[in-house]
C-alpha cells in the first residue's frame, strides 16, 4: 500500500548568503590575505635560533654606535705599568660576604729568573666597580667630548677583563672598538658586491645570449682563482702612503670584487626562470623597457632570496678581512680591527706566553656563527609559497 501522504516541500526562510559555506576562519583569512613579507616574517619567527642570532647581530651592530661608552678605557690609553697583564678576574664575594662586582688590587712583580712580568691579586684591597662613571675622555662620534663609561675601575684600581697587550692597552676596549671596522667592512663590502651581482647577474639572466656567456666566463675565471692569494696580490697593490681610511675602503673593495660572482649566479638562474612567466611577457607587450621589467617585475620576486644569500656571504668577508690583517697585508694600525688585534698573536711564542692575545677571535667566531644561522633562517623563510 502506498503512502499517500506527500511530504511538504521545505523552504528555509532565512536570508540567503552565497558565501556561507566558504566562510574562512579568522586564522585562514589572516594567512590568505597576508603579504609575502608578512608570511616570511611568520616563517622566520618559527626558526628560534635564527631569530636569536638576528637579535644578537642587531645588538652587536648597535653596540658599534656606542663603542666609546661600552669600552672601559679609551682606544689609545696606555697603562705603561701594566704591560702584558693577563685577564683580571671580577669577584662578587669578599671573605664570604657579598660585595657586588669588584676587583682586587692588581700587582706586578718582575720575575727575574724567567724575565717576565707576573701579576697577582692583592686581596687586602677591594675596589667595587662603578657603573656609568667618569674616566678616560673620548670624542663621541668624533664630535662631543665625553667621559662617561658603562663601567670603569675606581681610582687606584685597574680593570683588564681581557688583559693588556705589549703597549699596556686594554684588550677589551680594543676589541669593542675593533668591532666597528670588522663589522662594517662586511656590510659595505656586501653592499658593493650586491650591486655588482644584481647588475651583472640581472643583465646576464635577462638578455641571455652573448651578454650571458661573457658574464658567465668572467665569473668562471674569478671563481677559479684561489681567493686568498688573489686578495694578497691585490692588497699588495694598495700604496703604503694611503691614509688608513683609504686602505679600509681599498680592502673592502678588494673583498667585494671577488665576492659578487656567487650572487650574480643566483640572480641569473632565478631571472632565467622568472623571465618566462606570463606577467613578464605582459609587461613587455605593454612596452615596458628592460630596466623597468627587471626592477619592477623581476627583482621583487627574487629579492628575498638575494637578501638571504647576501647574509650568508657576509661571514666570508669578515673572515677575509681578519685573515688579511692577520697576515699584515690588510688593515694596519692605527686602524683597530679584530684582524689587526690578532696580528699581534701571529707568533707561536707570543701565544704560548700571552694566550689572551688570541681572545679577539671569540667575537669573530660568534659573529660568523650568528650570520650563518641567521642567513639559514632567512633562506628557509625566503620562499613562503614553497610548501
Amino acid at each position, binding site marked *: 500500500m502506498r503512502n499517500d501522504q506527500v511530504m511538504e516541500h521545505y523552504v528555509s526562510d532565512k536570508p540567503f548568503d552565497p558565501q556561507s559555506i566558504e566562510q574562512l576562519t579568522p586564522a585562514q583569512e589572516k594567512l590568505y590575505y597576508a603579504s609575502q613579507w608578512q608570511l616570511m616574517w611568520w616563517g622566520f619567527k618559527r626558526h628560534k635560533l635564527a631569530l636569536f642570532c638576528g637579535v644578537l647581530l642587531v645588538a652587536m651592530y648597535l653596540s658599534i654606535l656606542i663603542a666609546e661608552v661600552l669600552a672601559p678605557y679609551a682606544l689609545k690609553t696606555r697603562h705603561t705599568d701594566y704591560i702584558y697583564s693577563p685577564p683580571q678576574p671580577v669577584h662578587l664575594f669578599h671573605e664570604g660576604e657579598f660585595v657586588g662586582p669588584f676587583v682586587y688590587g692588581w700587582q706586578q712583580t718582575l720575575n727575574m729568573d724567567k724575565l717576565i712580568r707576573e701579576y697577582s691579586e692583592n686581596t687586602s684591597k677591594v675596589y667595587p666597580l662603578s657603573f656609568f662613571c667618569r674616566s678616560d675622555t673620548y670624542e663621541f662620534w668624533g664630535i662631543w667630548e665625553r667621559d662617561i663609561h658603562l663601567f670603569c675601575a675606581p681610582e687606584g684600581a685597574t680593570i683588564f677583563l681581557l688583559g693588556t697587550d705589549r703597549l699596556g692597552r686594554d684588550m677589551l676596549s680594543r676589541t669593542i672598538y675593533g668591532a666597528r671596522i670588522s663589522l662594517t667592512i662586511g656590510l659595505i663590502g656586501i653592499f658593493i658586491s650586491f650591486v655588482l651581482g644584481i647588475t651583472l647577474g640581472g643583465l646576464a639572466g635577462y638578455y641571455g645570449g652573448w651578454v650571458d656567456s661573457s658574464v658567465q*666566463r668572467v665569473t668562471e*675565471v674569478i*671563481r677559479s682563482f684561489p681567493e686568498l692569494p688573489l686578495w*694578497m696580490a691585490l692588497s699588495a697593490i694598495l700604496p703604503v702612503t694611503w691614509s688608513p681610511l683609504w686602505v679600509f675602503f681599498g680592502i673592502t673593495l678588494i673583498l667585494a670584487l671577488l665576492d659578487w660572482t656567487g650572487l650574480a649566479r643566483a640572480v641569473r638562474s632565478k631571472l632565467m626562470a622568472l623571465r618566462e612567466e606570463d606577467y613578464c611577457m605582459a609587461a613587455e607587450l605593454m612596452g615596458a623597457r628592460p630596466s623597468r621589467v627587471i626592477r619592477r617585475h623581476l627583482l621583487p620576486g627574487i629579492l628575498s632570496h638575494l637578501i638571504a644569500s647576501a647574509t650568508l656571504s657576509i661571514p666570508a668577508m669578515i673572515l677575509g678581512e681578519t*685573515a688579511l690583517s692577520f*697576515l699584515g697585508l690588510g688593515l694596519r694600525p692605527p686602524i683597530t680591527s679584530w684582524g689587526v688585534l690578532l696580528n699581534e698573536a701571529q707568533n707561536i711564542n707570543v701565544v704560548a706566553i700571552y694566550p689572551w692575545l688570541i681572545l679577539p677571535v671569540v667575537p669573530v667566531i660568534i659573529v*660568523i656563527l650568528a650570520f650563518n644561522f641567521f642567513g639559514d633562517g632567512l633562506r628557509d623563510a625566503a620562499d613562503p609559497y614553497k610548501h
Partner: protein
Amino acid sequence: MLPYIGRRILMMIPTLIVISFIIFVIIQLPPGDYLESYISELESQGESIDPAQIAALRAQYGLDEPFLVQYFTWATGMLHGDFGYSFEYGLPVSEVVGDRLFLTVVISIFTIVFTWMIAFPIGMYTATHQYSWGDYGLTLVGFLGLATPNFLLALVMLYFANVTFGISIGGLMDPEYLDADWSWDKFVSILQHLWIPVIVIGTSGTAAMIRRLRANLLDELHKPYVVTGRAKGVPPFKLLVKYPLRVSLNFFVADIGSMLPSIISGAEIVAVVLSLPTTGPILIAALQSQDMYLAGSFLMFLALLTVIGVLISDIALALLDPRIRLEGGRAA
C-alpha cells in the same frame, strides 16, 4: 666520453689565457718595479749604484718594454717552461718554485682525502639520524669548524702540541732533513708533520661538505622510491647505499672543484703560521718586494692547480653521471 674530455680541455685554454693576463696586470699594478725598490734599499744603506748598470739590468729583463710586450714574453716563455727570473733569489723562478709547489699539491691532495674520510660517514650519520642528539652535536661542531679562522686553529694546535706533547710541529719535516735528498726517513718525517696542516686546512671544508651531503641525502631519502623500497622490506643500510648515496655522490665529486680554491687559500695562510715550506710565505714575500715574475708564476700555478682540479672533478662527474655527458654533447 673522449669528445667530452677534449671539449672540456679546449675550454680550459681561453680561461687560462684570461687568468694569466689578469695576473700579469695585477703584478704590474704596483707603482715602480723591483729594481726601483732595490735601488732605494741600497741607497738607504748608503751605497750608490751605477745608473748604467741599472739601465743594463732593465734592458736585460725587459722592464723598459711596453706592457703588452712584457706580457707576451712572460706568457710565451711559460709555454716552454721558462717562468722568468726571480730578482730576490737570483735564480730562475722554476728552481725556486719546484719543491714548494710539489708540497702544496701533496698537502692539497691529503686534505681532500681527509675531508672525504671525515665528511662521508658523518654526513651519512647526520642525514639518517636527523634531529637526534648526535645530529645536533655534530652539526654544532661542524658550524664551529666553519666559523673558526684557519690560522687561529693552526695557532691553537701549535700551542697545544707544544704544551701537551712538548714537540715542535711547525714546518713540514724535521730540521735535519731540510737539505737532505729524498729518502724513506724524510718521507716518514714529512708524514709525521703533515697531519697538522691537513687537519687545520681541512676543517672548514669538512664542515661545509658534511652540511651539503646531509642536505642532499635528506632530499633523496624523502623521495617516494625510498619509501617504496622500505615498504618492500629492503634492509635499511642497503636502502641508504644503493641509490640515495649514489645520487648524492655527484655533489660530492662536483665539490672537488669548488673546494680546491678554498683549500689552496687555506694552505697559504696556514703555511705562514706553521712556517711550512710551501708557497704561502714565499708568495707574500714576493708580493711585498715586487719580485714580479716569482709572484706571478706562483699565482699562475695556484690558478692552474684549481683549473686542473675542476677539470678532474668534471671528468669524474661525467663518468659517474651520463646526464652530464649527454647534455654537454647537445650544447656543443
